[in-house]
């Protein structure tokens, strides 16, 4: 059914006549006037509004599906941001450890670990972070490179494997459509933040659309009830047995 831009006598104080392709349901001030002006009789008016109601329901289903998709997408993007942030945070500490470890392997044969550390400690007094690293090196027995991050990830249902994620300046982002692109950490963070903002904005618009749609559904349901009531009233007044008219499912 086409949206008619007619009969001001039928309309209430609508702010919008339509929103993003969804036609507004015109509010009817007076049923009798509406019926005589539009040329509808009760039955055809009811049928018209019932059909409108069905169309609204179809659109509502679509919007609800879109809303569910967006609501799933947003936590996903937030998780990705968290991972990138964690990798970036690790980066700093990794570099310092790397520096000390190299010196260590070069001197391994000549000095014991304890002697070497006290030598280094004397020379690098003011570097606080390196002292912390030296202290932890003292405790550990490994002289190999400390990796940035150890992570257990799911290979398949119930099966996990361990990954050593080294210091890295770049991450790969899955863009969809079988495309994965490498970005620097900063670019990745910027891109993900942008996507997150867009998703949140889309969700807001969608929620507003749904609210508008639900209002129109309510108006249509009320209109159907009123036309039905009017019809029953008319029949009583005209002393005709009311035929069974399908009432609206509210």
């Amino acid at each position, binding site marked *: 059914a086409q949206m008619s831009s007619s009969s001001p006598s039928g309309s209430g104080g609508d702010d919008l006549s339509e929103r993003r392709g969804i036609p507004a349901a015109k509010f009817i001030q007076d049923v009798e006037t509406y019926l005589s002006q539009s040329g509808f009789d009760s039955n055809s008016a009811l049928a018209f509004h019932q059909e409108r109601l069905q169309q609204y329901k179809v659109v509502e289903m679509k919007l609800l599906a879109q809303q569910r998709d967006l609501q799933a997408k947003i936590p996903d993007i937030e998780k990705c941001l968290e991972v990138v942030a964690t990798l970036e945070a690790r980066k700093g500490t990794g570099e310092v450890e790397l520096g000390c470890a190299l010196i260590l392997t070069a001197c391994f044969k000549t000095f014991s670990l304890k002697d070497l550390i006290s030598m280094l400690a004397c020379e690098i007094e003011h570097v606080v972070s390196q002292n912390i690293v030296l202290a932890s090196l003292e405790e550990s027995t490994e002289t190999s490179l400390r990796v940035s991050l150890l992570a257990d990830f*799911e290979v398949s249902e119930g099966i996990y494997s361990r990954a050593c994620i080294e210091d890295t300046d770049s991450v790969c982002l899955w863009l969809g459509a079988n495309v994965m692109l490498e970005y620097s950490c900063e670019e990745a963070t910027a891109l993900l933040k942008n996507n997150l903002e867009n998703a949140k904005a889309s969700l807001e618009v969608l929620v507003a659309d749904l609210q508008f749609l*639900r209002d129109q559904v309510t108006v249509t*349901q009320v209109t159907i009830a009123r036309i039905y009531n009017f019809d029953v009233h008319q029949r009583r007044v005209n002393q005709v047995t009311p035929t069974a008219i399908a009432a609206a499912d*509210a």
Partner: protein
Amino acid sequence: MQLQGKSSGSEMEVTWQDQQNINTFSRFNNRFHELEDEIKFAKEKCDNLEDAGNELILADEEMVRFQIGEVFAHVPKDEVETRIEEMKEATCKTLEKLEQEKESLISQMAELKKVLYAKFKDSINLEED
């Protein structure tokens, strides 16, 4: 919520204001149900974080596998403790805000019910089915 189509059959005047009240009540009702779901979810999350925090205290390993995104990263216990504290605080604050919104919605809906029942009496049903 229904507007009875079958009741008295009497001509009941419905003004634009009434229609707007009905629309608003419908919106509030929808939001109320959404809020109930969100509150349930937030409560669950809060409880889980609480349990995680308690488990952490009992655990004696230095490295804890902490879930970041889809993977479990090996993170030192202290850092995990801090992170869980932060997450708990954030979730509890969200939960509080949601509860407040729910309270205000309940009172607003009660107001509207009074107005609508006064006008329409039996012709309208605003209860949960």
